[in-house]
């Protein structure tokens, strides 16, 4: 077993993830902003804009309320990378999910530690979002296990049949909560580019300079990880369709982002859980009937 995880292949995957995610994630985010601009009839920023933003933030002064907040945010970045490394190195998918939760708890604690009213609201809302999405992600992992017989992503991806065939409900459910995970409208509750009046910048209000750059960087890692998670539903059984589907889903998310307005957190929580029960649990039950 130990050889599985340290084979050169998974090692290369993990290293590539660490090195390439900021670049690829940045380009995807850039295309996202470009496409968003086009949907709004604008030209939009350069494709590399998210990376320019991060580089710029590293050049700025680091203002903090308490020094400890940087520690939490740094830990957030570290564990977001750990999440992705575990995932792309073929590790146990449940451990991956728990590492992801851990990373998010770190950033939430960072927001709390500032004692700022805006960051406080953002932190509470981020926790609500965590609570809203966690069941669906765990159920997705279980669904993938039921089909492929493996908890390791390395095993899941090698499944001879694409899991999507048996897990359409769970896939749709994942797409639903992906909106929340990506912080896109209508679920951009915790931190938002568009909610100046009510939240300032929510969770990230008190982060500046390199600290804020770390959260942005962590978002890029998370983006790649999430898209990778979606790809698992297709695996190596249908890699091209998988890539295409991931692209389609992401474009759909951009469209939703532009076409909807932010909902209240109550609705966000309830709808996520209802979707999880209706699509996720029912799909899981249905697997036994087949």
């Amino acid at each position, binding site marked *: *077993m*130990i050889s*599985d*995880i*340290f084979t050169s292949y998974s090692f290369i995957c993990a290293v590539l993830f660490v090195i390439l995610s900021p670049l690829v994630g940045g380009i995807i985010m850039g295309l996202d902003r470009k496409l968003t601009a086009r949907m709004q009839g604008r030209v939009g920023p350069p494709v590399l804009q998210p990376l320019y933003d991060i580089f710029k933030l590293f050049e700025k*002064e*680091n*203002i*903090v*309320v*308490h*020094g*400890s907040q*940087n*520690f939490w945010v*740094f*830990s957030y970045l*570290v*564990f977001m990378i750990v999440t992705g490394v*575990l995932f792309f190195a073929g590790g*146990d998918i*449940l*451990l991956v999910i*728990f*590492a992801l*939760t*851990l990373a998010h*708890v770190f950033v*939430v*604690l960072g927001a*709390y*530690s500032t*004692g*700022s*009213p805006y*960051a*406080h609201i953002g*932190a*509470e809302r981020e*926790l609500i979002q*965590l*609570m*809203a*999405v*966690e*069941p*669906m992600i*765990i*159920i997705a992992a*279980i669904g993938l*296990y*039921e089909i492929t017989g493996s*908890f390791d992503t390395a095993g899941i991806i090698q499944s001879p049949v694409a899991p999507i065939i048996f897990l359409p409900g769970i896939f749709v459910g994942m797409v639903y909560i992906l909106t929340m995970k990506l912080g896109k409208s209508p679920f951009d509750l915790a931190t938002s580019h568009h909610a100046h009046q009510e939240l300032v910048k929510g969770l990230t*209000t*008190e982060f500046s300079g390199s600290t804020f750059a770390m959260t942005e960087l962590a978002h890029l890692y998370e983006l790649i990880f999430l898209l990778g998670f979606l790809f698992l539903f297709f695996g190596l059984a249908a890699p091209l369709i998988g890539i295409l589907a991931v692209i389609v889903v992401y474009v759909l998310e951009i469209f939703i982002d532009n076409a909807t307005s932010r909902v209240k957190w*109550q609705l966000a*929580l309830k709808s996520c859980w209802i979707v999880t029960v209706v699509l996720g*649990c029912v799909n*899981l*039950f249905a697997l036994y009937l087949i």
Partner: protein
Amino acid sequence: MDVLIFLILFPLIAAILMLLLPNGKVRDTVVKIAALITAAGSVYLFVESFGKGITYVSIGSSLLGSVMIVAELALSLFIIGISIKFKHYLIAVLAVVQAAILTYSEHFTPFDAALSHEFFVDEFSVIMALIIGIIGSLICVYSVGYMRGYHEMHPEIKDHRKLFFFIVFLFLSAMFGVVFSNQIVWLLFFWEITTVCSFLLIGYARDKIAWKNAFWALLLNTVGGVGFAVAVMFIMLYTGDASYIYLNDLIAAGPGVAMVPAALIGFAGLTKSAQMPFSSWLVGAMVAPTPVSALLHSSTMVKAGVYIIVRFAPIFEASLTGAIIAVIGGATFLLASAIAIGQSNGKKVLAYSTIANLGLIVACAGIGTQEAVWAAILLIIFHAVAKSLLFLSVGSVEHQKHSRDIEDMSGLISTMPKIAVMMLIGMAGMFLAPFGMLISKWATIHAFVNAIPPFGVLLIAMIAFGSGITVFFWAKWMGRLIEVQGTSDKPLKHEATSNEMFTLYSLAGLTVFTCLAFPLISRYLIEPYIGGVYGSVSELLSLNNILIMLIMMVLILLLPLSIGHFGKGRTIKSQYMGARPANAGLSFAGSMGVTKEVTLSNYYIENMFGEKDLAHFSVVLTIFLLIVLAVVVVLNITGVVIGA
């Protein structure tokens, strides 16, 4: 194996000593020495029994058997007497029923008929003994400082500290008895002692609410006791073999014989470990002094309930009875976690979280597969350590802040940094990867996916939702602890008495230690036990997953070193307050010269997670499940009786 007898008798002697010694330095020192000896005894037991598998111990005296019967009846008389005195006749009736059943069974088959191996020690007993010995002793040391402060804080409560320490040591003795007993009637005897100890300690304050909650706890536990007694009667009268009165023989006999007693004793276990619908007694028990909550109501006594269910896990494997018990556990986990969201009283959150985690253990035991039992035992260990740490920390905070409300713990990291850090460790231990509970939760999910089809998925769904909820209520509490608004708060010079700090440090150390050492615990304690019970051990935890967890653990331990790095090159500015300069207390400047102080508070979402509605719902749901369980058991009984 004399150490086993020593572990039961020594706390008993210490308990009697406590009754004699007056309040003061001498008693405090004796408590500490006795605690140390108890802890050392449990460690010695671990060393001596290491690698030996199951060992049977016999007293070999029929006299002791009769003494036991007399003691058992005396205990019943005590319960009957006190409940009549306080006009709780229902408890008296139940106690009479229980005593009658036992005497009746005794009449037909004398318990001391075949005295050969009344006590036993195996790896599971050793784990439990270590928990009782080490954590129990640490809590005793903590109590020395805590109870002094408790009486200073509550002058209206009469000082019964003699009785307090007597009961605590008596309880330790009884707990050792529970985990070492092989003879079920003896087990029941020790079990009843813990019930009475719990009752007396909940009622420690002797005011109206304390008595009310104490009797409520006694009532529900007596209901469980009756279930236990019926199990004994069933074994005596219907299994047709007196040797089944011994746990090991009963479990070895397999589901055909043991299913009914297992279900009945499992029912007793549900009441003891405060599973829904019986959970309300544990919430009420929070009126007891905090060390009691830590010792009896989180780390040891309630574990006796799950201990016995886990013992019967092989019987429950792949059976309908087991599945129903598992679903009761799963429902308890989900609903108790949900209720915890709506609570701002720190001890109540801990109580509900305890109920929830016990539910998870029960769910594992009900499923009863190797992996599930493995996860259950890990849960017992991690939960005992982390939860006692949390209870005791809240107790110490309460002494300083005169409140156990989470909202009043805001910014604790700046006023009581040491205790706050230890609380953070305890909470991380409760819900964050790669700490203890998360390892177990991971194992639990692995165990459930392969469990009997419709129930496995149901339990997975419960865990999936429950773990999301768990993250929410722990993280918001953690956030509250580290949320520092102003800079004016200075750390307290004296956070708690040295006794309390010693215990807190030790428990925090143990929390980290068990997380780091869990592969060893698994390898040398849990796997041999499972191997002994199931005959073989499949690979429960692959090496690379252990490695990943350890790497994450080390990362978490190393990351705080980076705090020094972040000290450089940063500018400190106050919070953004809508572009108004922030003052020390943080306030928003409104128009017309109005200023509004900022008050931050956590989300409790009471309209979704209200205690009343959810508790009501869960009681109805679990009573329904219990009825289904009863029907299954009755069908089983008719099967057995007709078969016999």
